[in-house]
């Protein structure tokens, strides 16, 4: 029982971050129809920026920030970076095929990773957390507070994103832009500004995911990329459309990896999410929860 609870907590935490990642690129996908392969490296970048701000002598030798202010500044910086990315890697290509933009985001991912490598080196680093080392005891299982924090923060953020999408003017405009960019523009929707905002928010979510993820292990250059693939898996399970579906997909992935993987061939638990994803694509190419078919990219 205690094992089960511990496995579930790990699974939910990983699932929550996968969902957060997936929501991040779904935001861009919904606004622009682009799948951003740089999302993973944005996560890595978020983790490194947080480390840079909060450790040793801090940024530019200004002194280390406290953890929470450091996190907040990280997320703001990531938001700005996302907007910049939109200007550099997406805006010039608008109107081109989805393929070129996807390959360009791959290039952007390579550039980001190379930049981080030059900046921070390749040795693994560690990000501190306000709840480091603290453990919650539930029915004999030890659950680190970091995992609880991950689950709670992700849940709050995802719900906020859903509310933002469904019930605000911004959300309506975003959905309108996604449905038909030109018509939205004619209706007075500031489409350029919106796609910048979408990229910014998406990068901010990536930064948040990086901050939440980093204290669970070490931070290296491949941290985000691996999680991005998990996020893809979550999105595929969810049918690449609704945020709700993605959350279910993320949780399914986390549970498959840690709960199922906790009991069956434990050494191989890292592959279960992908096996699940491949099976889902094989059996239901439109995803488990999809209402319509994915627009063929």
């Amino acid at each position: 029982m205690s094992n089960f609870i511990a496995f579930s907590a790990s699974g939910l935490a990983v699932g929550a971050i996968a969902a957060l990642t997936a929501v991040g690129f779904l935001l861009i996908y919904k606004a622009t129809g682009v799948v951003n392969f740089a999302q993973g490296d944005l996560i890595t970048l978020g983790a490194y920026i947080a480390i840079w701000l909060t450790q040793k002598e801090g940024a530019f030798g200004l002194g280390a920030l406290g953890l929470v202010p450091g996190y907040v500044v990280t997320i703001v910086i990531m938001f700005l970076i996302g907007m910049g990315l939109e200007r550099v890697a997406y805006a010039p290509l608008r109107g081109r095929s989805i393929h070129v933009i996807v390959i360009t985001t791959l290039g952007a991912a390579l550039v980001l990773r190379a930049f981080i490598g030059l900046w921070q080196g390749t040795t693994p680093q560690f990000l501190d957390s306000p709840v480091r080392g603290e453990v919650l005891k539930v029915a004999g299982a030890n659950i680190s507070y970091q995992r609880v924090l991950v689950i709670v923060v992700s849940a709050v953020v995802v719900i906020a994103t859903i509310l933002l999408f469904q019930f605000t003017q911004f959300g309506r405009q975003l959905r309108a832009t996604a449905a038909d960019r030109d018509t939205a523009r004619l209706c007075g929707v500031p489409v350029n500004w919106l796609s910048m905002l979408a990229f910014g928010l998406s990068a901010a979510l990536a930064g948040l995911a990086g901050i939440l993820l980093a204290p669970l292990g070490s931070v290296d250059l491949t941290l985000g990329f691996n999680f991005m693939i998990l996020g893809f898996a979550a999105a595929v399970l969810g049918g690449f459309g609704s945020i709700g579906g993605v959350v279910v997909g993320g949780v399914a992935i986390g549970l498959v990896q840690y709960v199922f993987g906790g009991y069956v061939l434990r050494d191989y638990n890292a592959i279960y999410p992908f096996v699940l994803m491949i099976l889902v694509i094989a059996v239901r190419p439109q995803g488990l929860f999809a209402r319509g078919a994915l627009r063929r990219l």
Partner: protein
Amino acid sequence: MSLQPTSPPQSTLEKPRVAPRAEVSPDDAGRKRARPPAMRGQPYMWLGLFLLGVALFRQFGVSGFGDTDLVNTWLFYCVIVVGFYLVFGVSGQFAFSQAVFAAVGAYTSAWATRVALFGVDSFWMGVVVAVVITAVVAAVFAFLMRRASHFYFAIATLGLSEIVLEVLRKWTDFSGASGDTTSGIRHISVFGYALDNPYRIFWVWFGALALVMLVTIFLARSPVQREAIAMRDQDVVAATLGVAILRSRITMFVLGSAIAGLGGAIFAHSKGFATPDSFAIDLGLGIFVMLILGGLDSRWGPIVGAAFYVFVPQWLQGGVLGIPGVDFTVNVFGQEHRLGDFRDLFFGSLLVIVMIVFPEGLVGIGRRVRSLVLGRAHPAQRTWLSDLFGLTPKKHAAAEGAGVGPTTVTPAVPVEAAAGDGAAGAGSGAPVLEAHDIQVQFGGVRAVDGASLSVLEGEILGLVGPNGSGKTTFLNALTGVVPASGSLRVRGIPVRLGRAGRVRALAVVRTYQTPQTYEHLTCIEDVLLSTADRSLTGITPACLARLPAVRRDRARWDAAARALDRVGLIELAEEPAARLSYGQRRLLELARAINAQPEILLLDEPSAGLDSAETEQLVEHLRRLQGEGVSMLLVDHKLDFITSLCDRVAVLELGRLVAVGPAATVFEDQRVVDAYLGVDEEATTSA
């Protein structure tokens, strides 16, 4: 009459090419033998010269183990990227799995030689086993992914990479690894002669590259490549022409992946050790960079791209192959970096720049330079990627299309209209195509709502109806392009609906409302796609039974050339279809249909956008086909065109069949008049 100004320039533009072909003698096609462009040129000679150059270079240009090792790395990349060229460049499959298939090959071969499978522990056995296992894994994967969209396929290959690498890390019984590294992998030996240093291993890579390049030439000079391109560009159209698109997609993926397995196996044996990380996503992305940088529409692209990828960073690092490099350091973030440290930054940026500025890659730039130097007007270089990216100016097509498009005023068809009516008795044979209760739904809309229709032997059945009445959708349903319910029998044989290509097997061929020709194939290749003779078209005969396969294909060219000649396009046989005018593309589609040797032809608005002379020609072609015993279902808007040709006419309205019968009777039917002109309010109220 407002049409008058637009048609003369257009006809002067097209007539010289199209019109005078009417009186061509049949031998003409024989005299001028049209060939697919892949059959031109001397690819074998160029490959030979290239290999000779590489060998000489290695003999005299390379000094030291370090440089030889670098050349070997280059050849390794060449081999796996050529495989990727087949997967992505030729057949358009967005895959990140190439690196990981190299890993499968490497570890399988290491395992097979370690445990001495079949009691043999030779390198050769290991390589063969590796290639077979890699191919099997790829085949299973591709089969599972057969319904995935491009993008899902890409994500799935990423997932597959994670799975394979994780299994290799964890399954130490298989990998034989201690820690991360599998060491002690058997060195290569050939007939007892150990190839254990880079100088000697070079020859193994040399042989592997020669083999792999030879395969690409074989494929280009066989139906395989054109069918893969057709599958890549418009898979549904290819399927309705009879191309086995699933086979094409899976076999190309398997072949490309097996080549990666071959490369991986040799790599493992040449190094003597392997780690999963050397095949991780970095290599996967690198493979992408190499192919796109080199140029993804040429078999030389991988070689050029790999050379760039291997040698340029080394040069930035301070010299390569005796060429002194730029050797200075840059201070970034407080650390000294040599230029080579910016490799990934460099390639990432280059990927973006290549995408934006020259999607045809270095090979494409080379072609441009060559045509500049030779002062030869070179055809605009376009790759399927540059089209995808909307980089290719489409002004030709647009201009011609604009001149032709809005021919709403129907030109009079002064063809023997009376004869057409007289022939109405011709279509009195047995039904050859029976569609019963066909239904197609798009969301809540029933585009075709229980239409039943039979085409009789030898007749031309017209299908008319107002816009949106479901005519095209009906054809789409019959040819499996859209999911539909109902039953369909062709010559009494039931056909399952919903799969493109099913009816093609029963000699039912269609054309499209807007001509669906292939921009990246020449006219003759386009026509060849529909061939009825599909024997020896696979990869195996293309590589292993060259002589019979080529001989068979040659017979197909002759047939295709005859079909082109028949519609008067033989002069343009070796031109890319993209350069044809709208009307010519219609004729090309017709030639393609003729080449398919159809028994039943489904024509979707064949006269749309044609001027009166072209329409006249079309009528002649269709009559001649009818005379050859082809039954036709003809969708069109021009009623005089329909009445002059058709034995019977069926009328669709709102997805239902409202009338069938001889044209004269049908067009007097009140329901048909209502369908076209709308119900007369007064008439209804007074009735």
